[in-house]
């Protein structure tokens, strides 16, 4: 059976629903040796500010049951060096590039987005208003409905690229944030970013991360992320990009059936960097077995118990 894996996010058509999650795949090029970047639905690159950033002191990650905490602190090369040093090669390799945009202020979000809008090969902007690991910006915008509306509207005005605000799960009602983003002109929303969390070394009585707190990702969070994706998909009309602990084709399908049009995979790529082809063939097999012709037919297809 020939199955159709194409999905659409705003004006962007992706050859399949699988994207790398920001911050878990470097700038994509690190993986060019072992993964055909053009075979991914999209490559979402590490969060970028206007300027370079050092990030936090190590230790930056710590493992937890079926998950991990990270407090990288958005170490990065800044948007200018990214455009100069990484984009040419990404274009050459045929990657569909989505840039995760960060900011310490509304102006910075706008400025970075404006710069990227003129760059050939940037396919969409993921607006990171949900990073739990930085002092200013990030989650501050993402935990307040009017700030969310404001920053999305402001960026909307400077770009025609598909705009995908990335939502934090650290709120009472994530779907109201999805709605605010939709109302502000977003083309899609992506979720979840990581859960604010911490771990303490009981012998030293110090946090295991130098930054005290970090973000929880990985299979541990999957059931919460699926619930949130489901809630958002019920409430908004724009596509939802789902993530949080996806590690198998069944997990991808679970998110899509819950309502995700596309998905991102982060932590699981650390465990298996070759996961992409496994996921793709797993989805294809499932579709053949269940006689599903187009992967979009699965989106939001969950039936409730009577």
């Amino acid at each position, binding site marked *: 059976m020939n199955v159709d894996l194409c999905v659409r996010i705003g004006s962007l058509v992706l050859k399949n629903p699988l994207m790398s999650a920001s911050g878990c795949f470097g700038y994509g090029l690190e993986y060019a040796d072992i993964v055909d970047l053009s075979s991914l639905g999209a490559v979402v690159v590490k969060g970028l500010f206007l300027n370079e950033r050092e990030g936090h002191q190590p230790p930056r990650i710590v493992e937890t049951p*079926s998950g991990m905490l990270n407090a990288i602190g958005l170490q990065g090369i800044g948007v200018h060096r990214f455009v100069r040093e990484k984009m040419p090669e990404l274009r050459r390799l045929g990657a569909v590039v989505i840039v995760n945009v960060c900011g310490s202020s509304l102006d910075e979000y706008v400025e970075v987005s404006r710069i990227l809008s003129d760059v050939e090969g940037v396919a969409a902007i993921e607006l990171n208003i949900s990073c739990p690991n930085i002092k200013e910006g990030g989650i501050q915008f993402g935990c307040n409905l009017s700030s969310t509306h404001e920053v999305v509207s402001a960026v909307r005005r400077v770009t025609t690229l598909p705009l995908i605000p990335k939502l934090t799960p650290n709120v009472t009602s994530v779907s109201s944030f999805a709605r605010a983003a939709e109302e502000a002109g977003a083309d899609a929303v992506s979720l979840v970013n990581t859960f604010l969390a911490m771990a303490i070394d009981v012998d030293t009585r110090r946090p295991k991360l130098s930054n005290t707190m970090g973000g929880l990702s990985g299979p541990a969070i999957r059931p919460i992320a699926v619930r949130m994706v489901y809630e958002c998909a019920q409430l908004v009309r724009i596509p939802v990009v789902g993530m949080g602990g996806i*590690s198998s084709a069944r997990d991808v399908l679970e998110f899509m059936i819950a309502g995700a049009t596309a998905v991102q995979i982060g932590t699981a*790529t650390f465990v298996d960097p070759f996961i992409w082809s496994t996921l793709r063939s797993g989805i294809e097999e499932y579709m053949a077995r269940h006689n599903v012709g187009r992967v979009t037919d699965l989106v939001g297809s969950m039936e409730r118990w009577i």
Partner: protein
Amino acid sequence: MAPIDLDAEVLRNTHLSAGYHVLVLAAPGIAAATRPGQFVMIRTTTGTDPLLRRPFSVFEILRDADGTPEAISILCKLVGPGTARLAGASAGDRLAVLGPLGKPFDLVAPPSEAWMVAGGVGLAPFAALTESLAALATPTRLFYGGRSRTDLFYLDWFEARGVRLDLATEDGTRGTHGRVTAPLEAALRVMPADRPLTIYVCGPEPMLKAVAALGRVHGRPSQVSTEQVMGCGLGGCYSCVVRVRDESGTPHFVRSCLNGPVFRGEDLVWE
């Protein structure tokens, strides 16, 4: 060469002591491509706990009768749940092994000497290094420290390959009583300045720092194998950073899985 991921069969698991074992894995593609100082990432379970792979230096590159590389071994110290699973592995089990990863040691050739300095499980990268240096006929010494004589392994193996051993134990049961930096410093002192040498070092961080400092003081280049907690081993996550000075002398964080794990001691900035 691009790293590969093998579902490697465990060929042997030899326990050296309660805390140390050598795990031999059938991994021809990795064995053929590995250069000394590189590492592999091993999955210790098929489930999600522990979730992440664990990094290990390639200890030996093992060859068949014709000399074709067919297996690697790792020297593994028991410290937590991941290494506990590896300690319990038996011949016939299968483990996902990703590699080779990272930058290897730069090899020095005669007339330069190679001085390896190992603390505890820091011995791990030096078996493979010894074989490569032997192929160049580089004279080698190993300064090797442990808590006790029962924590020193593979001494015969190194001696059989012409490596001169300088041992140290913290309890004085073998070699110098105290840290391995003592015999190293003594040797550096008496080494004529016109005889070139490079220091290779692997071990706990305070030791790396001390040895890099000794190298600096005595004007000897050092190659330091660092150990940071690693999420991916491939440059994806930025977890494994160490601070390094760039050409302009400005320190910044670089990923030790990509730019290391081996760094020039001169470049490393210690916190």
